[in-house]
C-alpha cells in the first residue's frame, strides 16, 4: 500500500484553509499546554503529526498520517485516566476542489474529568488521502464503535477501510448502482440513479428459524429491519439492517440551501428531537463566525431544549408501556404529555418543529404571560408524573416484563460508545450538557442539576434514568424562568468565513448529538455531518437482544429509544430477493407486517 512516507518527496502539503492565514495557527506549544493529555498525545505520535491547530474553544485538530490513525484513535479511546473518553464519529470530506485530496477525520469526546465543562474537549484526527487511492487502515476490528462509521464512509464517499470485518453496504438503497458516491462533490444532489435490487444478508445459523421483524413492524415506530434468528422463542442471533429514513439530508444541505435555511432542514432530521439538531447546528455555525450570542437567546434555547426533553421522556415511557401491551400506561403517559405540547405550541407556534432558532439567536421572545404558562404547566406535569410513576411502576406485570431484560454491561457500552440514558443506565457517567463546553450556545453552565446514573443496565434501569432526568429537566426549567436575563434575543450574522470548520453538540434525550460544519464560499455549507445518538446505540442492540425472547424484542429495541430518522442513515433491506408474485405466501411472508396498532 502506498504510504505517505514515500509520497513525501514530491508531496508538498499546503492546505488552502491555512494559507490565507485564517486558521488559528497559534504556535504548537501554547495549544498543547491548554488542555491535559494533548502534550502526551503529541509526544506519542510526534513524527506522524504534520500540523496541530485549535479550531474553536475546546476543539483541537491534529493532521496525522493515515497509517497511524487506528493507533491514535485507540490511544485516546482506551486512555487510562480519561475513563469516559469515546470515539464520537468520523467525518469524510471530498476536498478535491480545495486541495485535491480526500479527508477522513475521526473525532473523540475527551472526558478529562466528568461534568467539568472547561477541562473536557474534542480531538479531531484529520488524515489526508490522495484522490486516486482513498483508503485508510480500519480500526473497526478492535473498536466496534467504528464499525458503522467506516461502512458509512465507504458507502457515501467511496473510501476503502482496509481490514474492516464486514464491509457490507450500510446506508444506500438496494437499487443504488455500485461506484456512484453521493457525497462526492462531482455528483449533483438531485441526481438519483437506479439499478436492480441486490440484497446482502448474514446467513441464517443452522437450526434456527428466521423471524423477520421489520421493515415495518409493530414493535418499532419506524422502518428498521431486525432479522431475528430464533430457536423456539429464544433469540440466537440478529442481523440488523436499518437506514430506511435516509433522505440525503447532508447533500441537500450542501446543495440547495443557504446556512440559515439549513437550520430548518436540521430540525426535520428527527421529528422528536428536532430542536436539539437545530441548536447544535446553530452552535457550530456561531463558533465558525466567532459570534457571541446574547444571554437571553442562550436561556430561551436551553428552555426549549428542556421542554423538548420533558415531552420526549413522557413519550418514550408511553411507547415502552404500549410495546409491553400495557395500553393504559401509554394512554396516561401521553395524556400527561399533551399540556407540554400545547404550551410549546403557544410559545413557538408549532407542536414539534419549533422553528425558534436562527443562526445568532432565537426568533421569538418569551413574554411574561408565556412565563406564567410555563410555570403552570411545569407544576401540573410534576404532580401527574409522580402519580403516573407510582401506578406504572407498581403494575407487576409491567415490572416483570421490564426487569432483567436486555441487559447491556458497562464494558460493551463503552466499546460501542453507547450514549445517553442507555449508557447512563449501564453505569457510564456522561452527559454532554455538563461535559463539553455548551456555554457558547446554551446556558447549562448557569443552572445546576444532577445526572442520574444506574448500574443494572436493563430496561427498567433505562425507565428509571429517564424518569429521574424528567424531574431534573422540570427543575432546570424553573431555574431558567426566574434567572432569565434581559437584552436582545438575536445577533445578526453577516457573512461566514470561508473553509472554516467547527463542531456543535447538545445532549438530546437519546444521547449526544454532534453537528460538524465546514463552510464554503458565498455562505454555503461545504460539508455538514450529522451524527445522532441512535447511530452509536443501534449497533449495541444485537448485543442486548441475544438470549431473550421474541416477545421482548420490541421492548429491548425500543428501550434505547431508537430514532431511526434521527440517525438519517437508517435504512432497511427487504428479505425479498426481487421477485414479486401476486399474493403468494412467500411474498406475504417476506413482507413482515407493520403494526401501529394500539388496541
Amino acid at each position, binding site marked *: 500500500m502506498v504510504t505517505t512516507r514515500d509520497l513525501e518527496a514530491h508531496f508538498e502539503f499546503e492546505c488552502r484553509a491555512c494559507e490565507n492565514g485564517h486558521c488559528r495557527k497559534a504556535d504548537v506549544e501554547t495549544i498543547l499546554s491548554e488542555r491535559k493529555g494533548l502534550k502526551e498525545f503529541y509526544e506519542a505520535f510526534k513524527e506522524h503529526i504534520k500540523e496541530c491547530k485549535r479550531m474553536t474553544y475546546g476543539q483541537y485538530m491534529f493532521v496525522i498520517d493515515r497509517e497511524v490513525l487506528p493507533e491514535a484513535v485507540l490511544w485516546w479511546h482506551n486512555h487510562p485516566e480519561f475513563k469516559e473518553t469515546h470515539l464520537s464519529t468520523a467525518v469524510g470530506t471530498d476536498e478535491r476542489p480545495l486541495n485535491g485530496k480526500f479527508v477522513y477525520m475521526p473525532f473523540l469526546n475527551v472526558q478529562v474529568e466528568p461534568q467539568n465543562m472547561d477541562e473536557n474537549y474534542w480531538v479531531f484526527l484529520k488524515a489526508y488521502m490522495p484522490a486516486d487511492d482513498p483508503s485508510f487502515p480500519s480500526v473497526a476490528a478492535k473498536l466496534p464503535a467504528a464499525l458503522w462509521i467506516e461502512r458509512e464512509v465507504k458507502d457515501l464517499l467511496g473510501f476503502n477501510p482496509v481490514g474492516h470485518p464486514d464491509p457490507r453496504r450500510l446506508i444506500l*438503497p438496494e437499487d443504488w448502482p455500485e461506484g456512484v458516491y453521493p457525497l462526492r462533490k462531482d*455528483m449533483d*444532489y*438531485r*441526481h*438519483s440513479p437506479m439499478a436492480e435490487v441486490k440484497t446482502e444478508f448474514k446467513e441464517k445459523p443452522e437450526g434456527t428459524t428466521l423471524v423477520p421483524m421489520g*421493515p*415495518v413492524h409493530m414493535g418499532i*415506530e*419506524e*422502518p428498521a429491519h431486525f432479522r431475528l434468528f430464533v430457536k423456539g422463542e429464544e433469540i440466537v442471533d440478529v442481523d440488523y439492517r436499518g437506514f*430506511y*429514513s*435516509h*433522505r*440525503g439530508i447532508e447533500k*441537500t444541505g450542501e446543495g*440547495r440551501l443557504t446556512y440559515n435555511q439549513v437550520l430548518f432542514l436540521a430540525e*426535520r*432530521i*428527527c*421529528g*422528536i428531537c*428536532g430542536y436539539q439538531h437545530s441548536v447544535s447546528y446553530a452552535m457550530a455555525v456561531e463558533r465558525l463566525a466567532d459570534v457571541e450570542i446574547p444571554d437571553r437567546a442562550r436561556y430561551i434555547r436551553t428552555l426549549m431544549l428542556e421542554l423538548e426533553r420533558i415531552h420526549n421522556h413522557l413519550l418514550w415511557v408511553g411507547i415502552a408501556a404500549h410495546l409491553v401491551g400495557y395500553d393504559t400506561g401509554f*394512554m*396516561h403517559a*401521553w395524556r400527561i*404529555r399533551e399540556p407540554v*405540547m400545547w404550551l410549546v*405550541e403557544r410559545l413557538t407556534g408549532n407542536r*414539534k*418543529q419549533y422553528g425558534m432558532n436562527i443562526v445568532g*439567536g*432565537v*426568533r*421569538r*421572545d418569551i413574554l*411574561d404571560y408565556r412565563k406564567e404558562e410555563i410555570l403552570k404547566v411545569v407544576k401540573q406535569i410534576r404532580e401527574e408524573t409522580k402519580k403516573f410513576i407510582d401506578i406504572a411502576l407498581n403494575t407487576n406485570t409491567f415490572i416483570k416484563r421490564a426487569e432483567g431484560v436486555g441487559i447491556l454491561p458497562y464494558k460493551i457500552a463503552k466499546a460501542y460508545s453507547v450514549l445517553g440514558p442507555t449508557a447512563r443506565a449501564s453505569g457510564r457517567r456522561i452527559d454532554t450538557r455538563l461535559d463539553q463546553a455548551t456555554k457558547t450556545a446554551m446556558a447549562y453552565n448557569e443552572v445546576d442539576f444532577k445526572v442520574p446514573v444506574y448500574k443494572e443496565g436493563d430496561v427498567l434501569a433505562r425507565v428509571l434514568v429517564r424518569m429521574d432526568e424528567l424531574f431534573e429537566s422540570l427543575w432546570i426549567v424553573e431555574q431558567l424562568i426566574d434567572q432569565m436575563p*434581559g437584552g*436582545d*434575543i438575536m445577533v*445578526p450574522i453577516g457573512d461566514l468565513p470561508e473553509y472554516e470548520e467547527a463542531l456543535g453538540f447538545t445532549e438530546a434525550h437519546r444521547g449526544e448529538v454532534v453537528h460538524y460544519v465546514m463552510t464554503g464560499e458565498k455562505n454555503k455549507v461545504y460539508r455538514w455531518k450529522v451524527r445522532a445518538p441512535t447511530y452509536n446505540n443501534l449497533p449495541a442492540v444485537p448485543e442486548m437482544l441475544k438470549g431473550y425472547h421474541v416477545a421482548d424484542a420490541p421492548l429491548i429495541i425500543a428501550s434505547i429509544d431508537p*430514532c431511526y*430518522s434521527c440517525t438519517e442513515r437508517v435504512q*432497511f433491506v*427487504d428479505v*425479498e430477493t426481487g421477485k*414479486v408474485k*401476486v*399474493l403468494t405466501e412467500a*411474498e406475504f411472508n*417476506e*413482507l413482515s*407486517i*407493520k*403494526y*401501529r*396498532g*394500539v*388496541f
Partner: protein
Amino acid sequence: MGRRLKSVWVYHVDAGSCNGCDIEVLDVLSPYYDLERLGVKVVPNPRHADALFITGPLTRQTRIALKKAYEAMPPKPRIVVAVGTCASSGGIFYNSYALYNTSPQRGRDRLRSGGPEMIVPIDMYIPGCPPSPEEILYGVAQLLGIKEKKMKGEYWIALPPKETPSKENEVEFRIPDRPIPLRYWLTLREELRRVIGYYDREAVLNDFIELVDRAFKESPENPREKLHDLVTGYFLKEKDSRVKVAMRFLENEFWRLYDEYHSLGEALRKKYPVTAGV
C-alpha cells in the same frame, strides 16, 4: 349529514418519515383527541386494514415496503391518506437523491408532485409539518363524511399601481398609509426583530405608531416630551416587561432615525443646492 363510514380500520406505513408525523398519528389516539370514538381503529397489519396512513417522503428504500403493504391490503376499500407535508409533496427533502422520483423536473420547477403519490394513488392529503392532531382529525372527519372541505385554490392578479380592478380576482395596489414615513417603519420593523422577535413586533410597532401619531398631533412643537409621556401612559395598561423594553427601545430608535435623516437631508441640500432638473 349522515356518516357514510362507521368503522374504518387504519394501517400506518412510514415511508422514511422523520417520525414527527408518526408521533402525531399516535397522538390522535391519545385521550385528548381519541380517534377511536369515530370508529377508526389502528390495526397491526395491512390484511385487516381498509385505509392506509402514509407518512414520510418515500425514500428510495421504503418504496419496496410501501408497494408491498399497498398490495397486501384487500383490494376493495383501499383508501390512502397522506399525512404530513412530506407525504403530500416530498416536503423539504423533495429533490434529494435518496427520494424516489419519477417526474422529469428535478429543480424548483417541480412545485406540486413529490412523495408517495409517485407509486400509490392518494385520496386525501393532510399537509402540515407535523400536522397537529386536530388537522388529522379534520382530514379523517372529511373521509368519514362529517366535515366539508374548506380550502380552495386562489388566483389573484396584482394590478400595477393606479389601475382599477375590473374582474373580481384583480386587486389594486395599496401601500397602507402610516403616520411615519415608510423608511422609518421598515428600519424599526427590522430592528424589532432583534429585540422582541418577528411574531410580536407587528402589534408592538402598530401601538407605537399610534402613539407617535398622537404625539405629533397633540403637541407638534415639542413631540419628544409628549411621546415620552404617552409611552409611560401606555405602560400603565401594558404590564408586560418585554413589551415595555421594546417600546422604550422604539422611542429612542425613532428619535435617532429622525435626527439622522434630517441631518442627512440638510447635508445633501447644502452640498448639492442645484437639484431640480439634473
